[in-house]
């Protein structure tokens, strides 16, 4: 019987294999891209669900790449938070791959799309699963470079402009991250995260941790589009093809930005009151400014992009509270946001597919002609606005309760205000796009093809059932396990070294 830790490298190896296989056969065989994209993401989703069970059975697992024992070799670590993020990313990726089967018909080279898609997925899974600092930077760059190319996929004026802006800002962010890693390496003489945490704890952080924290908050904050660093997101996300917008807003900014930031701040450097207040302020700023900028938008996808900034603010606020309930709420909201925001972007893609427009003023009454899109986007809008009993309500409620419990009444108040404004903004979307009187020119509009309907319905179902994650065994095995991984703080090092065995 193979040791359970052998599933760990598959999360990177599988999508990489798919990404390199596709250019070989994709040009000649017409059905190969759809099939490869679907099958590989399905396999990854199944594996990620298995990984939750594996972590439950065995605790934290460590895989040594090339059989070099950490801290000399590269380690890949599978703990509660990792498996939680893997499920989020791969679940959304599979559904989006299904959606793309029909949607990407209008672009010429499908195999290029799926190849880049799998490459991006490999990068994201790599960032999540690695336990090595420089490895993290490499995977960060794999995912980012693939995403620049995907934003520019349409190669029209706007796509190129947005991709250039995104690429420049994101490259600078990566370099800040690399600089932070250099400082940490020169101070601790190790690249292994667990070892680094031990050395930092033994030596005492001092000034170097302040410097490094600033660099990481800047670098990963840019990747996550927190407010002072958000300028690229409202251009880049709407310009990409709809499945990629869903992927970028749904999971990329979370796995590259939020996850990496939290992992380093909590488990390597160690959380302190100062870092906590930085995260709280950044989170609240994103939450409020994002939603204010969103209200005035008339471009469907641009409006959604601003809401991404706002919702990321909730996640950071929850995690920044650094209380068990706050972290649980933040992570739960991270999962929920990736589901409903992907769904909303897929809805906007479906509308664009059928009508060819993204302007809310031009739409109207589309729910009559496109019942599935109308219904699923209603569910997603209510989720994001925090209407019970959909999943967004529960996670926002937990975050607000956690803020009140921690005595941060001001932040709780802002969270409520931002939630009300979100509701207002999505009432506008529903009214103008789906529920107004049907305009004459949309008489011939048809509902989207079957795979797109399937994908949207699946995500809508998760939105409705999302609240169940807070109940019973699912909560303890899935959510709490992830929150515990952050809460254990710098004890992470001891746990990882025990995992190596």
């Amino acid at each position, binding site marked *: 019987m193979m040791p359970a830790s052998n599933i760990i490298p598959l999360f990177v190896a599988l999508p990489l294999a798919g990404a390199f296989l596709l250019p070989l056969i994709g040009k000649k065989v017409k059905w190969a891209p759809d099939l490869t994209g679907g099958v590989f993401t399905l396999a990854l989703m199944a594996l990620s669900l298995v990984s939750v069970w594996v972590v439950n059975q065995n605790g934290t697992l460590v895989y040594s790449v090339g059989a070099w024992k950490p801290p000399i070799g590269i380690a890949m670590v599978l703990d509660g938070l990792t498996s939680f993020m893997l499920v989020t990313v791969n679940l959304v990726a599979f559904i989006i791959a299904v959606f793309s089967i029909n949607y990407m018909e209008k672009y010429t080279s499908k195999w290029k799309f799926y190849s880049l898609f799998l490459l991006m997925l490999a990068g994201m899974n790599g960032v999540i699963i690695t336990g090595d600092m420089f490895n993290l*930077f*490499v995977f960060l*760059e794999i995912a980012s470079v693939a995403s620049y190319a995907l934003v520019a996929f349409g190669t029209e004026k706007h796509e*190129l*402009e947005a991709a*250039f802006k995104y690429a*420049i800002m994101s*490259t600078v962010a990566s*370099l800040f991250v690399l600089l932070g890693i250099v400082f940490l390496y020169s101070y601790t003489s190790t690249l292994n995260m667990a070892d680094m945490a031990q050395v930092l704890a033994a030596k005492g952080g001092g000034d170097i941790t302040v410097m490094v924290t600033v660099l990481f908050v800047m670098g990963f904050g840019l990747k996550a589009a927190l407010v002072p660093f958000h300028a690229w997101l409202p251009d880049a996300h709407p310009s990409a093809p709809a499945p990629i917008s869903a992927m970028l807003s749904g999971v990329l900014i979370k796995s590259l930005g939020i996850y990496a930031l939290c992992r380093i701040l909590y488990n390597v450097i160690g959380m302190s009151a100062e870092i906590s207040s930085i995260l709280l302020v950044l989170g609240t700023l994103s939450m409020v400014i994002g939603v204010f900028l969103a209200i005035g938008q008339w471009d469907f996808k641009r409006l959604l992009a601003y809401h991404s900034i706002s919702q990321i603010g909730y996640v950071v606020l929850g995690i920044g509270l650094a209380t068990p309930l706050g972290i649980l709420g933040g992570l739960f909201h991270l999962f929920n946001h990736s589901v409903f925001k992907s769904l909303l972007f897929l809805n906007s893609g479906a509308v664009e597919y059928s009508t060819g427009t993204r302007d809310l003023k031009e739409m109207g009454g589309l729910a009559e002609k496109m019942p599935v899109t109308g219904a699923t986007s209603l569910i997603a809008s209510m989720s994001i606005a925090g209407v019970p009993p959909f999943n967004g309500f529960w996670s926002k409620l937990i975050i607000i309760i956690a803020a009140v419990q921690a005595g941060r009444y001001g932040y709780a108040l802002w969270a409520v205000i931002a939630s009300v404004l979100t509701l207002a903004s999505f009432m506008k979307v529903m009214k103008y796009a789906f529920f107004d009187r049907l305009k004459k020119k949309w008489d011939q509009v048809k509902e989207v093809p079957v795979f797109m309907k399937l994908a949207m319905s699946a995500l809508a179902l998760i939105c409705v059932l999302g609240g169940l994650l807070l109940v019973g065994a699912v909560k303890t095995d899935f959510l709490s396990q992830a929150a515990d991984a952050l809460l254990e703080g710098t004890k992470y090092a001891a746990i990882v070294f025990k995992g190596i065995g």
Partner: protein
Amino acid sequence: MSIYFLCLVLFVIGIYCIVRKRNVIKMIIGVIILEYAVNLFFILAGYRVNGRAPIFSSGEEIKNMVDPLPQALVLTSIVIGLATTALLVGIAMRIYEKYGTFDITKIRELKG
């Protein structure tokens, strides 16, 4: 010490180039300079005065050697930088085809 300072100067030049220059190509050059500043700093982090290459051979005791790990890592980082630069230049070429200019103030159809 002055070499670290020069490294910082290179870094600042890179940032300045990206923030202030209006030409797309010059911005890309700024990114490259920034990349090299960080790479150089990484090499410097593993450097020792009068250090030698860390190659072991029998009958010889090495007392003062430079850290080889940053050099290996910087190689990786240079390759990554190459990929990024190639993509950026590719996008810049397409931008020139569509807009007919490299001036960033004229490439402004998005509001963000």
